[in-house]
Each structure stands twice: as C-alpha cells, then as structure tokens.
C-alpha cells in the first residue's frame, strides 16, 4: 500500500469514526458532517477561517517534519511557538520583517537548549522539549501579567504589536504566502541540498551517517535549530497576522497539533500543505459544531488522535506484508 493511500485512508477513517461517535450520542452523522464541511470550506468566509487556522498548523507541521526527518524528537513546537511570538512582539517596533526574524531566532534558540542538553549530558530531547514547553507557557504567563502587561493594566494581556502582516484579501493575512513559501523552502532544503541529504541520512541511520563522515551531533543540533526556527516563525505570524497581542492561552495547542499534521503528511513538506488544510478545516468546523449543534470543539482533538492511531495501524498493515 502506498504512503499516500494510507494517509488518505487515515483521514477518511477519522471522519467516519467522528460520524459514528456522533451517531452513538444521538446526533445525525450526516448533519454533523455537512456542518463540518459547510462551516470549513462551504463559503468564502468559512474558507478564510480555515486558511487562518491552517497557517500555524502548516508551519508547526513543517517544524516537526524537519526534526523527525533528522531523527530528533522535537515535541517542543508549543514552547518554540510561544517564545517566537514573545520575541516577535518585543521586536515588532522595528517592523514586520525584523519581528519575524526575531521570532525565528528565538524559536531556534529555545530548541537549541534541548540539543545542548542532549549533546553535553545526553538528556533525551523528548523530555527536555516537553519540559521547555511548560517553561515557555509560564514565561508567557509571567510576561503578560508582569513586564509586558498592557498599559491599561486591565486584562492579563499585552498591548497590540507595533507591526502587522499586510492583508492579502479580506480577512486573510499575507502569512499564508509565507507559510506556503516555507513549505517549498523546506522541501528544497531536504531534497535538493547536501544539508538535507545529510539530515535525512542521519535520521535514517546515525551509525552509518557517522561512518560516512557526517558529524552527527552538530547535524542533529542544526536540524533542531531549523525546526525551532520554523515553529518560532509560526508564533510570530500568528501574532502579527491574527491575534496582534499575546495572552496566556495564545498557543492553543498549535505546537502539539503540528505532530499530527506532520505524521498525516508522512513527513513530506509539500504534503504538509494538504494535511494542515485538512486539520485547519477540522478545527474550524469543530468550532461551528460547538456553536450550532452543541458538540464540544474537542472533536477536533479527537480527530487528530484518531488520525495518528489510524496511521500507526496503516503503517503496520503496510510493513507486515
């Protein structure tokens, strides 16, 4: 079975399971699916909503693609997203470009803390990146209640960022183009540069990579930094394009959702575009379900979980032949 087919089947299976679950709880599965579709891609307004949700998912997905391809388990997208946004806010008075560059640098630096611990003390990055997520969440909480709190001091949130991303069409900011360009750039890096070949080689077989003269440690550190930079960029774009200010629940799980996005895309940077759009639609549709059909928006998370489980099953079917 081809990888594409198993990804598509996993996505379809997730929707089916969603419908079946809805039926078990007395909702009409067809009505539910039709609300999902209508409210995510059914109108211009719905489509814009889906696109807005897809942008951070695409970038955090790409971040995971880079890391997983290199064989480093960067689960820290959430934290890198947050510190990226914090840096973007602070640097926003120098303009949007400087702000996004600051976001990437901050994301890379945050991720590099994990690689430093891995290289010097052999601390597994799965743990350190998750712990750094909590650190980042509290850093954000402290910032919006303390040094970065709005001047009005009314809510635990920051003032508006000094820069914004110029809008493309009504309701959609130009970050969409940046995210698409990032997909192509990541594809080019992975498949058309020596850096990408070495990165993939290290991910597949670090032992053989080492014998082939690749400096595995610094290769992993670079992959982690690039991965963190992309997650940081996601945070910066979300700030300048959508929320314009920071508050405690700013990240909203985008960092973690990136893992599902990347896995559904079978770790391919261009397939990540479709995968991010699918999850973006699911999140947007789930919001509408909550408003009109009284179904918790948690179904979006449910959908992500089912997709990952289905992919594991498919993978097993594919390799067990």
């Amino acid at each position, binding site marked *: 079975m081809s990888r594409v087919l198993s990804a598509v089947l996993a996505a379809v299976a997730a929707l089916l399971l969603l419908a079946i679950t809805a039926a078990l709880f007395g909702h009409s599965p067809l009505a539910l699916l039709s609300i999902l579709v209508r409210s995510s891609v059914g109108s211009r307004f719905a489509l814009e909503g889906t696109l807005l949700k897809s942008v951070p998912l695409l970038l955090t997905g790409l971040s995971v693609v880079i890391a997983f391809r290199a064989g480093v388990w960067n689960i820290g997208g959430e934290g890198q997203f947050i510190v990226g946004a914090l840096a973007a806010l602070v640097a926003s008075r120098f303009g949007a470009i400087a702000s996004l560059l600051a976001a990437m640098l901050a994301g890379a630096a945050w991720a590099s803390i994990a690689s430093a611990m891995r290289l010097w003390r052999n601390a597994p990055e799965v743990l350190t990146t998750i712990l750094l997520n909590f650190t980042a969440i509290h850093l954000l909480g402290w910032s919006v209640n303390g040094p970065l709190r709005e001047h009005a001091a009314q809510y635990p949130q920051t003032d508006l960022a000094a820069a914004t991303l110029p809008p493309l069409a009504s309701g959609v900011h130009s970050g969409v183009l940046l995210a698409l360009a990032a997909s192509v750039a990541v594809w080019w890096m992975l*498949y*058309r*540069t*020596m850096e*990408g*070949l*070495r990165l*993939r*080689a290290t991910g*597949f*077989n670090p*032992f*053989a*990579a*080492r*014998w*082939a*003269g*690749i400096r595995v440690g610094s290769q992993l550190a670079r992959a982690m930094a690039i991965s963190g930079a992309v997650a940081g960029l996601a945070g910066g774009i979300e700030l300048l394009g959508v929320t314009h200010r920071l508050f405690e629940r700013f990240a909203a799980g985008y960092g973690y959702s990136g893992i599902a996005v990347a896995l559904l895309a079978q770790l391919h940077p261009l397939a990540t575009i479709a995968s991010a759009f699918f999850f973006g639609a699911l999140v947007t549709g789930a919001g509408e379900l909550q408003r009109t059909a009284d179904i918790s928006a948690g179904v979006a998370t449910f959908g992500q979980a089912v997709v990952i489980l289905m992919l594991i099953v498919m993978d097993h079917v594919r390799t067990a*032949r």
Partner: protein
Amino acid sequence: MIQLAHVTRTYGATRAVDDVSLRIERGEIVALVGENGAGKTTLMRVAAGEIAADAGTVAAGGRVELVHQHFMLVNQLTIAENLALPHPGFRFTTRRGIEREAEQTIAASGIELRDVARRVAELSVGERSKLELIKAIARKPATLILDEPTSVLTPTETEELFRVMRRLADAGTAVVFISHKLPEVLAIAQRIVVMRNGRVVAESRAAEANVVSLANTMTQSPFPPSGGKGVERRRGGEILAIVGVAGNGQAELAAKLRDEQPNAAHIPEDRTRDGIIAELTIAENLALRNERWNPRDAARHAERTIALYSIRASGPLQRAGDLSGGNQQKVILARELERRPKTIVAAEPTRGLDIEATRFVHEQLRAEAANGASILLITSDLDEAFALADAIQVIYRGRLSERLSPAEASEKIGRLMAGVA
C-alpha cells in the same frame, strides 16, 4: 522435509527468486551456493515463512528454523534470558530457573557455551553465533536453515558446527547450509544446489562436484583455479593487515581511526548498520561524502558507478537496503574509494561476500595500493591477509604484535592469535 514449488518473489523491479522448485529430504544436508544477490537468502526466508512468496507454494513437514547471517539477539539480556524469550504464554519464573533451563537446553544441543549469566554484549562473535544456533535447535525444527554460519567462525568453531550439523541430520533433521566457501560446502554437504540470478542453475551430489566447476557455474565467467598477486606495484602504497580472532579490539581500532582520520576512506565491518543507509537510494548513498547534492547529477554518476562496479540493481533510484550484501558492499566501496583517498581503513571488507565480489574488492584494494594509497586491512580471514598484505600485525586483547613480514607471520601467526606467543 521441505518442498518448494515454483516459488517467485520480487523486490521492486528485481526478481530476487524466479520460479524455483526445491525439495529437501529428512536427514539430508544440502548446501545452497551462489553469488551475492543470487536469491539464496530470499528463497530461504520464503521457506521459513518469514516473507510471503508472490507465487508458488511451500510445504514443510514440521517446523522450519532459519538462523540469520545477522544476529537476532537482545544484546542487553543474558544468554539465559535470550533463550527464555521464545517461551510462549505467561509463567512465573526466577533468574535461577531460566538459567537452569538454559543450561539444559545448551547441554541438549550438544554445543559448548559456558556461563549463561553473561550478557550477549560481552560475547564474542563466535559465541553469539553458537547461541543463535542453540536457540534454533531448541525449537526442534524439522528443517534447519543456516545462512552463512561460518563467515564469523574460526576453523575450530567451524568444525564444531559441522559436527552439530551432522548429528542433527543423523537424527532426521533436514539441514540447509548457505555458504560461499566452496571447500566447506564440499566437506559438509551431500547435495549442492547452485543459484544464479534468482534461479536454480545446477544441482549435483557433493561427491561428483569440485571447486572449479562449482565456481564456474556460480559466476558464469571462467574462474582461474589459482590466484597470485595480479597488480605490479609501482609506487609507495602498502597494505598492512591487522589479523586476529574477532572481538580482540578490531572494532574499537576501526572506530578510533574513523574519528581521528575523517579524511581517510573507511569501510566499516558491519555493513548493514554502519555502511549503508537502507532507506536512501543508491545515488544518495554514493553522494554522502560529496560537497554538493544535485539529484540529476547524482543519478548520472550513480549510473556510471553501477556499471563500473557491476552492481546488480534496477537503477540509481533503487533503495540501497533492497540490494544484496555484496552489492551493498560495492556501493560503500565506490563511495569511499572514488575520492582517491591517501589512507584506506577496510574492516572485514569481504565478509559474507561470494568469490566474484571478494575478487573484485581485492582487486580494488590492490589497485589503490598500486596508486600509492596506504591501506590498513583489518580482517579475521587469514587467506585474505596473506593474499593482500605486505606486512602483518596480530591483534590480541587490544594489543598489536610487532610488524611481521608474511613469511615470518606464517610461522608465528597461530600462536600470536591465540595469545600464547
């Protein structure tokens, strides 16, 4: 007893096994010989039920056990624990309990392996292969298949293995023995089956076969009965062989040289773990040491390399992991040698390779030496050391002996390797 009828198995565009029928009787020892990539291992994996055939049938009268060329042991566990692993179902036991069981299993197998509380990681390669064999015999197979069992064994260990094989056959087990070493094959097998390009091309009784005719059927090209140093030495370039029984520090030496001399060519001992990146294509594997990566140029370059090294592959975009061992080794060799390195460290460069591939590797090393490269050949194959080396050093428990000329070495080598000199 086992009977294969019209078995076919393909990998991508390659027909690894092509319409093969084979029957092995109770109590028979059959040798399966052929070049790398001839389809021997694939055929036997089908026989053991590890992989499915695309077409054809397998009928086995009882259990079939395949002992792999590569070890399938858990390094972190002890001998006893490894032997206890296949136990089905749930039970309570103690460390002492499984150790006693292991001792009984080992005694019943007739193979000598002491101290079952040792971890596999501490065992020598020879001991590990004994453990694999014990594990297989313990399951009382009706058919036992051994894939290249002697490539890591010393001559004494090989004889011990042959005694075990004969005893199993006498007790009614059908034994299949995959090998490249034709003298061994003639010594142990009753019947010899030759494979080439996925097909059985010849079958004969061992009593009627000889090395030269077998080699000729295996390779198609005429095989010179005796070797000799082909290449005239012109400049510098010396081949120094480090010989010793496996596990005396060879792996550590090679790893140290890899880290200290990154610009030298390194051919690692464990080619599936350290040499090849299975998931990448041939073109990608060849390009790993390059400065730049361009898929189109790399594919063109790989095409030339495939032709030059006569690598059996469907093309530059084939996954390197789908190649046979010998062809993988050629890919590694091509990658390491095409930079014209001044120093080459080759560890067991012909382990598990067939005659043709071995000859090819030897020719490449000699040619590099003739071009002025200095070569360190780490090998446990004494024939290889004497065939290639200008000087020999013996490694024993991590220490190197003095430098010996081949003539000096031929007298002292046995004692030096055993650590009694």
